[in-house]
């Protein structure tokens, strides 16, 4: 089975991200593989282990995004490809989907294209379904488990109301959620292999795509309003006394 895991590089979630001079700044915090995408790589590796085949990690980003791809290689991906082009600086999700679709075709297609549910930076969670639409493939979104029998893929999709069991025929595009299983740690051998790997870098010309004009653009960037940080500790001799006081406070706030 040929599997492509789509990943992105984002600032670490511990980073102190703020708006500064109209730009997003994260200081000297490290850039890492998008945490949700680690689940995509994990899901891809599980599929490879169950059905043999290969896993290719695919990323759009600057040269530095090779580090995120190296993480995927260290986890066990067989190959990695970076799509990098100065014309991709202001990419929106529709643009990303078109570029990913072109890169997937250049790779030669896949039986499964796996995404994380969303990225930590933009967080829109649109790219997986948009890529499926551009490729004309079935979308199995928010999969918590994946089972393949012959050419049929069955997933348990995690939705607000519980689980929806969906079935489609390969090739498919999937997004996965945490229930797929904790992402494995890179092995020592994996890290060595990744550090030596040469990651091909494709330009838009290489994948036969033109620069997509962004449809969605940012006009302003703000820091969230600073919250009132005064805390009032509720104390008392007994739990009942504390609870009594706390209940009065909550009721006085008129939030119920």
């Amino acid at each position, binding site marked *: 089975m040929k599997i492509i895991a789509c990943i992105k590089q984002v*600032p670490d979630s511990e980073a102190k991200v703020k*708006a500064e001079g109209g730009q*997003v700044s994260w200081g000297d915090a490290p850039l890492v593989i998008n945490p949700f995408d680690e689940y995509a790589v994990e899901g891809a590796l599980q599929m490879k282990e169950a059905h043999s085949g290969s896993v290719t990690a695919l990323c759009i980003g600057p040269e530095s995004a090779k580090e995120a791809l190296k993480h995927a290689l260290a986890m066990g991906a067989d190959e990695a490809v970076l799509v990098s082009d100065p014309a991709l600086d202001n990419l929106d999700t529709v643009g990303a989907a078109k570029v990913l679709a072109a890169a997937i075709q250049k790779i030669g297609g896949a039986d499964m294209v796996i995404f994380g549910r969303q990225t930590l*930076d933009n*967080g829109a969670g649109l790219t997986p379904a948009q890529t499926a639409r551009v490729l004309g493939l079935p979308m199995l979104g928010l999969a918590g488990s994946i089972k393949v029998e012959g050419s049929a893929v069955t997933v348990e999709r995690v939705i607000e109301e519980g689980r929806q069991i969906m079935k489609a025929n390969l090739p498919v595009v999937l997004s996965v959620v945490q229930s797929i299983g904790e992402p494995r740690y890179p092995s020592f051998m994996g890290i060595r292999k990744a550090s030596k790997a040469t990651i091909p870098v494709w330009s838009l010309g290489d994948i036969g795509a033109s620069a997509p004009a962004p*449809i969605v653009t940012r006009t302003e960037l*703000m820091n*969230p309003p600073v919250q009132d940080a005064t805390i009032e500790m509720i104390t008392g001799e007994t739990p009942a006394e504390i609870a009594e006081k*706390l209940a009065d406070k909550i009721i006085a*706030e008129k939030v119920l």
Partner: protein
Amino acid sequence: MKTFVYIDHFKGEVQPSSWEALGLAKSFGTAVALVFGTGVDDVAKMAVEYGADEVLVADDPSLTDYRAEVYASTLAALASSQSPNLILFPTTARTREMAAMAAIDLNTGVLTDISGLEANGDSFVATRPIYEGKVIEKTVCSGKPVMATIRGRAFPKPERAEGKSGTITKVAATGEAKSTVEGYGASEGAVNLGDAAVIVSGGRGVSNNPSLTPPAGMDEKQAEVWRAQQGFALVTELAQLLGGAVGASRAAVDGGYIPYAHQVGQTGKVVAPDLYIAAGISGAIQHLVGMRNAKLIVAINKDADAPIFKQARYGVVGDLFAILPALTEAMKKKLGK
């Protein structure tokens, strides 16, 4: 100005923020509600009662179970023929997908999880959180129609005028589904954190009650989960009394104490209830970004140095196994329940 409002429902149960989207649409002009599925007449009637100027109903066997492809095609076909300026959705697993796909068909964009929307000529400026809510952006969409999914409880819910009658028009379903729905898992009950006005959440601390003796024959992990479930029973009791939902930290979900659908935080659901009570949650940044927009935050934790207290308005340093039941009792009495 004409706005389509997609009324998201699961087996006829409407996502309440669909009505908030309808109210927002009305503030810009004409609101046309879209209802897809089979046997959805009641949903269409409700849309009229909540203020829709017209309801378009696609009632077709291909729409019985949600499948992104056919829902997106039906939406895109309606948008192509009726040219709305704006399409609004509540933000759910379903709407993110169908909006994403329809945007490809219509060559436009989707502004997700927005907490503000202003008309600007014949276009719109949306406010939405990015980087897990650490930064807020204003964003525009140059395509037409502008598509946006709204954050639950960010816009006022319109009044319902029961018995009101209005125009309900049948429309055709378009497109082909690329998947089949084999069934639904009942393992997880309905958890609607995004719409909940009150959320009571439990963390790792809910398993930390050494005075409980687990049934014989359990190994250490089973005993831990069993203890946690006793803890979550206390969380649930308070949540139910207050008409709220049960949330959880990632630690509690990873520990196997409670299903993922309850997870609040960066890798779960970002919530903004009126009241958020955190019990036995230390307050990792992943959790804080998911709940810090709650109007009132109350934290109960054994550890006085827990970061959750930096976010809370009221704090109790103490044992949740003593405080939670006492709080439930006190609330029962004071609320006359």
